[in-house]
Structure formats: C-alpha cells, structure tokens
C-alpha cells in the first residue's frame, strides 16, 4: 500500500505550508506555528495515525519541533515540522490535551530545550532534577556544561 499524503491532508490543505516526500514512505509536512494543533489533531483523530514521538531541535535561526506520526498500514512516517523563530521566549501550542502520549515528550523538550507548550495539562519538570537551575537548557547549542 502506498500512502498519498497530499490527498490525505486535503481537508487541512490551507493549514500546511508544504508537503515533501524525502524518500519512499518518509513524508515531511511543514506547518505554520499557529496551525500545529489542528493539523496534528486531524492526523491523530481523523486519519488515525499513530503518534510516535516529537523531536526538538536547536536549529539554525529557529527552534524546530518535529511531531512524528506513523501510518502503520503502509509503514510510512509523516513528520509535522514547525519552526519557532522567537528565540527569546520560544513557545508552541501543546498537542498533549488530545494525545496523552505526547505529555511526557513535551515536558522533556521543555526541560532540555526550553520550549514552553501552551495548554499542556501538567507542565512540570520531567527529565531535569528538582535542583537544576532555572533557564539552563542542556540541549541548546549555547549550553556550556
């Protein structure tokens, strides 16, 4: 089975910037910051993709958050990519309210990269120790141990 992601995303087509097949069964969907929730919600609740995990990246000029989904019927990954340009106070809408599996990883990214997730049901520390200093994020490029 071959997954046609462009066809699949037609109902939210105006909410995504671009759809790219990096290679066979590997799709990347660029999404503006404000639409991350409707796009992920559509993929999870309507298309019923399986949420795999999120990756936070301290990239050139912005923070990237990648939400990886898997379409098991075809073995395809659909990765929703969001770029957060604001480096002084990076934040993104949380997808955890409708996807319980995302709860831990958003807390983890918050700890390690300092990206806040607005609307997260329980935005407590997950990875860092309770006595770790505020405002020090180990996965940021400028982190000095």
């Amino acid at each position, binding site marked *: 089975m071959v997954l046609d992601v462009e066809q699949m995303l037609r109902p939210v087509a105006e909410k995504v910037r671009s759809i790219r097949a990096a*290679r066979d069964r590997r799709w990347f969907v660029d999404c503006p910051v404000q639409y991350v929730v409707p796009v992920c919600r559509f993929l999870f609740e309507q298309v019923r993709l*399986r949420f*795999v*995990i999120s990756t936070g990246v301290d990239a050139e000029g912005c923070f990237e958050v*990648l939400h990886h989904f898997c379409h*098991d019927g075809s*073995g395809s990954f659909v990765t929703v990519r969001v770029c957060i340009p604001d480096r002084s106070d990076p934040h993104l809408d949380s997808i955890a309210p409708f996807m319980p*599996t995302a709860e*831990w*990883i958003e807390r983890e990214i918050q700890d390690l990269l300092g990206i806040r997730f607005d609307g997260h049901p329980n935005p407590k520390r997950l990875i860092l120790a309770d006595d770790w200093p505020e405002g020090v994020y180990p996965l940021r490029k400028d982190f000095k141990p």
Partner: protein
Amino acid sequence: MKENASSIIAVGPLHPLQEEMEFFQLTRDGEKVTDIQVRISYNHRGIEKLSETLQFDQIPYLVSRICGISSASHPLAYVQAVEELAGVKVPEWALYVSTIINELERIHSHLLWVGLAGHFIGYDTVFMCTWRYREPVLDLLEQITGNRNNYGNVRVGGCREDIPDGMESKILQELALIENKTEMLTKAVLDAPVLHARLKGIGVLTKEDAIRYAVVGPTARTSGVDIDVRRDDPYAAYPMLDWKVITQPQGDVFAKAVVRLLETLESIKMVRQAVRRLPRGPIAVEVKDIPPGEGLGHVEAPRGETFHYVRSDGANRPVPHKVRAPSYVNVPLFRASCIGADIADVTITLAAVDPCYSCTERMAVVDNAGKIALDFDRLLQLSREKTFKIARQMGRPLPGGIQCDG
C-alpha cells in the same frame, strides 16, 4: 490527594544501586486503585547529548547501552536511520545476520518476561524453567558476537562480525530444545485453569485505549491492534522469511502471556530459516561520508517499536539524534489499565507491559493521608496470595508443571 513528598522518599525508590529508577505512586480506596502517578528520569544519562559528541560510526556502541535487554534493537534502528539518510544499500547476508541476532534477542527477552510474570503471581517453577532455557540463547549470542548483551554487532553499512563458521548446527540444536520447552510451557499455560482464573480479565487495555495511548509492540497486539514494524515497514531480512504477526483481542494479562509465548515460537522459526539461508556473502559495505539530510529508523524491539531520528549537517556527527524506546509510550497507559483495578493485580498489570523488572520493583501504595501503606514486597505478596487463594478455591495444587531437566 495532597502530595506528601517526604513519605514518598521514605520508600527508597531512588536507590542508585538498583537497576532502573522509575517510581509509581498508587492511591487507593480500600482494595481499589483510584489514581496512579508515574515519575521517570531519576537516572537520565543524556545519551542524546552524548551522541552529538560522537562520530556516526561510534554511536552504535553508545546506543546499544541504552538498554541491556534490547541492545540489538537500538543500534539497528540507529544505523537504519543513518543508512536511510546516506542512501546506503546493505549487503543481503548482513540483513540476515541482523535478523538472527534481533530474533535471538526477542526469544531471550520474552522468556525473561514469562519467568518474571510467573514469579509475580507465585509460579516460581515457571521462573526457574524459563530462565534456565534463556541461558542457551545468551550463550549463542555470546558465541556469535562475543557478548551476552551489548552485542555491538551492527555498524553503518552492515555488520561487524559474521556468524562463525560451523555455528549453524549448534544454533539449530539449541533452538530445537528451546522450541520444545516453549511449546510445553505454552500448552501448560493454556491448560492451567488456575492461570485462566488468575489472569483473564486482569489489567485490560481496550483496543480504543491502546490506539489513544499509541502503545506499541506486544502491548498493542494483545489489545487487537495489528501492528508490527517487521511487517509494516519491512527491514533486515524479515520480508524474505515466512512468519506471522501474533495478535489477541482480549487486552488482558493472559493474552499478553499468550502473545509473547507464541511470538517466541515465531522467532525460533525465523532464526531457523535465516540460519539455513545460503550462500553467505559480504557482511558490510564501506561508508565514507554522511551527507546532510535526515533519516528515521524504527525496529520492532521485544517491547515494541524503537525509534531513532538522525539529522546530519554534513559533518561527521549527528545534530540532533532523537531516541524513543517503546516503554516511553507503553508506560503512560498504566492510568488506563490500573485505575479501578484491585491492588493485588497491580504488580502483574504493570509487569504485563514488560517495562522492566525494576520498574515494578519501585512501587508504593499511598493511603488517603499520604502515608506509605504498602511497599513493593507487600504488593508482590498480595499478588502471589491471590493466586494461591484461587488455586485453593478450585481445589488445585499450584503447578510445578514443567520439567526443567534436559
């Protein structure tokens, strides 16, 4: 309930000499669990950060240390991600070698789980027997790779070591023994009325919840979610072998035991086919440079999908490298399968997900005043007593059942 930090610490879940740190705090009302809180990351090792300081070809040895018992799955998922981004084609025999090692890993991991599950409900004979037959599998892995765990046998572009010449007959011989004992054990489980009474309907995870919590591996397959990376996104030599994905619809602990036992038999079938495959060939290709790009790799580890995401900027180190082990998505479902359950069933329900032996060891029940009411030893005892009670009520002895010799 108000969180009472001092009473939690008193249990000693953070003891650094024990295997892994994970803390479960159950709140109870009488015999029923009313809430469960999980806390992780007491021993975060910063592997993703470390990975950014290592070269692409050093990382397989790092990631094989993420988990002792899945130490073939992590490096394989990692090298698949790198091979994907670099467009490397791995020689066919290397795919077979990886398959053999990964399936031997699944066999020993599932046998380990069956043993622990037996121990948790009072069947110590099962524990002794499965661990007795897990040993030859570890011996085989040692003879192939040099190590009982942390095999370090995959590298970007293929494998490090081939199956030694003349090992085939030894592998086939040991497999025959393990298959015989696993079949016997499967039959014993299916025929044991006490086990049916003890485990059926316990810790049920519905198909709807399994999808909502996005669980993976045997945990998903026992709730009727038919997913398996080995079939869905074929890798290694799995597409060339004859095997089937095992699913059960019930979602209870009994189904989890059955699925793991049947999967063990499937794995034995797979290793046998792979070992007999001839002719052999080269086990690796040289990979010089990793171009800029990104790759995703996933592997069906014994506990479910292990996922690695690797990005390269054209230098010789990843930026970044993301790892997700299956328990990261399987553990949060405890809220779905434990709330409302009987206290005596919690140990086996948590263990049924196979998070790790130590995960369930660090557990305490807190009563409404925030005091520690039951520690792990007491919970284990409750679980075992419930089995003994059922056996007595049914007028049956606790089965020793299977013979350990031979």
